[in-house]
C-alpha cells in the first residue's frame, strides 16, 4: 500500500479575513465597550434582569461586566436547526454550513407583468414566497416585501400567512412587537400541530434589531425575552452604518456591532439558559455622497465576511448579507454586486446569508434579482466545492491512454466525471453567436424575467390543509379586531 505522511487535504477553498489575534482584539474591545461605555436598554424588564445578574445600572443605562458575557457564551448554543412546513426542508446553522435566503420588508416591487414600481400587496408577498419555494439555491425565506393595505400594527401576521402559504421552506420572520411575535408563534404552532413540535424543530427564526449606536428599544428587548421563553431562535443583530451609526473604521464598526449582538446573548441567557441566538447583521457604510446604507459596497462584503470569522470563533451561528445591490434595476451593477457578495459570503462560511433579491439599497424587493442571484449562488457553490485530488481525478492513466494529439470526449473517464466536475448553468448563455441570434438575442434580464413568469404561472407550493388555514386566518382576524379601534 502507498503510505504517505503529513498529507493535508483542502476539501474546499480556504478563506478568512481576520487572524485569531485580530478576532480576539475585536472581541475584547466589544467587552470593553459593554463594561465601560454601556448600553441604553429601554425595557425596564431588561434592565432589571441585567441589574439582578450583576450589571451596574443608572436609569436605562446599563454597564455589562465581561464575566457576565463570558458566562452567557457558555450556555448559548453553537448550533440551531430549523425546518419549514415541509419538515424535511431543514437548515443546520452550524459552523461553515452556508444557506442563502431573501431579506424582509421592502416597501416596493417591480410588477413582473407591467414593469411598474408599486407597493407590495399580500398577493405579492405570497408570490415572493412561491419564487423562493421554486428556487433550488434559496434555503430559507424572508418576506422580501412589506404587506401594504393592512393595519400597520398587524401587518406582520398577514405577511406571515402569505409566506406560510407560498413556501414550505424554513422562514425568518419580523414582528411589530411582542404581541405580533406571540400571534405568529401561535400560528406556527397551528401549522406544526402544537408547541412541542415547534420546540423540537422550530419553523422560524425571528429577526430582532437593536438600534445602533448602543440602543435597545423596548420592542426589541420584549421580543427577545419572549423568544427566549418560548424557545424561538432569534437573530439579534444591528444594521451598522460605518461613519454614521458606527465608527467609520471597519474594525470599530465590528466592535460596536458585536457589543450590540452580545447584549442579545446575555439577555437571552438570563431569561432562559440555552436560548438560541444568531449574531452578525448588515454591516456596511453610509455612502458619503448620497447618505444611503450601501447594499453593494465592498465594505459590506468585507464586514460580513470578517464578522463571520468572529462568529465562528465564538461558535455562534452567523446572519450575513449578500445577493443585493444599490442599483434600481436588474442591470450590470446589480449583477456585479450580487456576484461579488454571494461568492465572498459563500467562501466565508456564514450560515443564514440573507437579503438575496434586494435592489435599491433594500427598498425594492426584486423577483428578478432573486432569480438571477439563485444562478449566482449555484456558480458560487461550484467554486466552494473545490478540487478533488485522488489517483482517479489526477487521471494520469487517462492522459496516457489518449496520448499526444488525441481527445478526451470519447473517454469513459470524461463521461464518468463531467456531471460532478462541471456546474450546469440554467440562465447563463453559452450558445455561439448564430444560435444566440436565432433564439432571439435574449439578454440575462430577458431570460431572468421569463423564468420569473414561468414560476409565477406554474409553481404550486405544498398546500396548507383548509382547516389549518382557517385557524390561521382566525388568529389574523382577531389581531385586526384588537387593533381596529
Amino acid at each position: 500500500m502507498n503510505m504517505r505522511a503529513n498529507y493535508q487535504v483542502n476539501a474546499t477553498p480556504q478563506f478568512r479575513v481576520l487572524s485569531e489575534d485580530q478576532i480576539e482584539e475585536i472581541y475584547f474591545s466589544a467587552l470593553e465597550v459593554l463594561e465601560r461605555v454601556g448600553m441604553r436598554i429601554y425595557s425596564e424588564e431588561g434592565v432589571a434582569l441585567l441589574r439582578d445578574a450583576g450589571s451596574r445600572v443608572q436609569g436605562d443605562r446599563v454597564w455589562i461586566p465581561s464575566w457576565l458575557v463570558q458566562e452567557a457564551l457558555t450556555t448559548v448554543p453553537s448550533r440551531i436547526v430549523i425546518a419549514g412546513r415541509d419538515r424535511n426542508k431543514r437548515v443546520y446553522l452550524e459552523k461553515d454550513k452556508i444557506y442563502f435566503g431573501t431579506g424582509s420588508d421592502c416597501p416596493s416591487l417591480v410588477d413582473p407583468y407591467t414593469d411598474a414600481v408599486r407597493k407590495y400587496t399580500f398577493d405579492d408577498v405570497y408570490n415572493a414566497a412561491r419564487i423562493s419555494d421554486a428556487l433550488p439555491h434559496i434555503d430559507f425565506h424572508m418576506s422580501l416585501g412589506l404587506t401594504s393595505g393592512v393595519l400597520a400594527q398587524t401587518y406582520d401576521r398577514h405577511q406571515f400567512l402569505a409566506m406560510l402559504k407560498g413556501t414550505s421552506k424554513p422562514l425568518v420572520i419580523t414582528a411589530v412587537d411582542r404581541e405580533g411575535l406571540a400571534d405568529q408563534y401561535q400560528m406556527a404552532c397551528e401549522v406544526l400541530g402544537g408547541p412541542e413540535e415547534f420546540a423540537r424543530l422550530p419553523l422560524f427564526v425571528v429577526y430582532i434589531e437593536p438600534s445602533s449606536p448602543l440602543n435597545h428599544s423596548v420592542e426589541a428587548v420584549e421580543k427577545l425575552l419572549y423568544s427566549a421563553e418560548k424557545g424561538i431562535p432569534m437573530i439579534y443583530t444591528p444594521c451598522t452604518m460605518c461613519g454614521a451609526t458606527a465608527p467609520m473604521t471597519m474594525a470599530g464598526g465590528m466592535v460596536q456591532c458585536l457589543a450590540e449582538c452580545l447584549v442579545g446573548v446575555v439577555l437571552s441567557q438570563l431569561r432562559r439558559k440555552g436560548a438560541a441566538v444568531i449574531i452578525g447583521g448588515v454591516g456596511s457604510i453610509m455612502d458619503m455622497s448620497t447618505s444611503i446604507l450601501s447594499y453593494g459596497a465592498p465594505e459590506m462584503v468585507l464586514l460580513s465576511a470578517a464578522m463571520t470569522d468572529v462568529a465562528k470563533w465564538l461558535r455562534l451561528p452567523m446572519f450575513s448579507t449578500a445577493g443585493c445591490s444599490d442599483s434600481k434595476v436588474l442591470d450590470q451593477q446589480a449583477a456585479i454586486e450580487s456576484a461579488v457578495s454571494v461568492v465572498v459570503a459563500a467562501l466565508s462560511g456564514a450560515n443564514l446569508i440573507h437579503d438575496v433579491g434586494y435592489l435599491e439599497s433594500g427598498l425594492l424587493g426584486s423577483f428578478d434579482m432573486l432569480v438571477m442571484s439563485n444562478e449566482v449562488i449555484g456558480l458560487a457553490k461550484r467554486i466552494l466545492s473545490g478540487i478533488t485530488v485522488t489517483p482517479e481525478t489526477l487521471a494520469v492513466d487517462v492522459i496516457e491512454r489518449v496520448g499526444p494529439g488525441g481527445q478526451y470526449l470519447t473517454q469513459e473517464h470524461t463521461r464518468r466525471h463531467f456531471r460532478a466536475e462541471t456546474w450546469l448553468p440554467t440562465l447563463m448563455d453559452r450558445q455561439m453567436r448564430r444560435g444566440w441570434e436565432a433564439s432571439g438575442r435574449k439578454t440575462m434580464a430577458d431570460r431572468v424575467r421569463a423564468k420569473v413568469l414561468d414560476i409565477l404561472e406554474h409553481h404550486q407550493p405544498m398546500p396548507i390543509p383548509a382547516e389549518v388555514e382557517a385557524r390561521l386566518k382566525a388568529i389574523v382576524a382577531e389581531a385586526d379586531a384588537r387593533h381596529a379601534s
Partner: protein
Amino acid sequence: MVRERIFEEMAQAVIDGLPDKARALAHDAIQAGIDPLEAIERGFKAGMDVVGDGFAKGELFIPDLMMSGEAMKAAIAALEPELMKRKQQRQVLGRVVIGTVQGDIHEIGKTLVATMLAASGFEVHDLGVDVSPQRFVDMVRQVDANVVGLSALLTTTLLNQETVILTLKEAGLRDKVKVIVGGVPASPEWAEEIGADGYAENATEAVEVVKRMVGV
C-alpha cells in the same frame, strides 16, 4: 420474444455508451442468426435515437453523445463482415468524408461533428488531422461521398479549405460532392467566398446542414 430482449439490450448498450457491450451483443446476434440490418435498425440505432432526443432536450450532454456514438461505431464494425457476407448494405442518410485540413492538427471539433453525423445515420469516413487535399479527393472518389467536411482552427490553415475545393475541381469531382466548412475562423461569408456549399457554427448545426445537403 428473446429477439426483442436482445434488441432492447442493444439499445441500452448504446444509451449507456458501452462499446465493449455493444460489440459483444453484435457478435451474439451474428451467432444467433439475426439479420444484421435488423440488429442495427431495431437495436443499436433505436438506442442512438433515444440519446439524440435527450441531447436535443438538454437532458444529456456531449460526453453522453460521444460515448453512445463510440458504442454505435463498435457495433457496426462488428456487424460489417456479416453484412458483406450477406451482400447487404445498411441504410445510411449519406456518405461523408471529413477531416482537418493540411497543416492543422486540431482534432476535437472535427471529431465531434464526425460522431454526431455517424450518430444521426450517416456513413462517416474520418481522415483525421493534417489531411492533404489529395487524400480528401481520393477518399471522396473511393467511397463515392455525397458530402465532404473540412475543418480548420487556425486562420493560417483556413486557406487550405479553399485548396481542397480547387483540388476537387481539378479532379472533376466538385459537381458530385457538397462541401461544408467549419472551425472557429470560418464563417458563412468565408464559405461563400471560397465556393463551399455550407457552413456550420457547431456540431448540432452541422448535422442539420449536411442533412439538407443530401435532401433529408
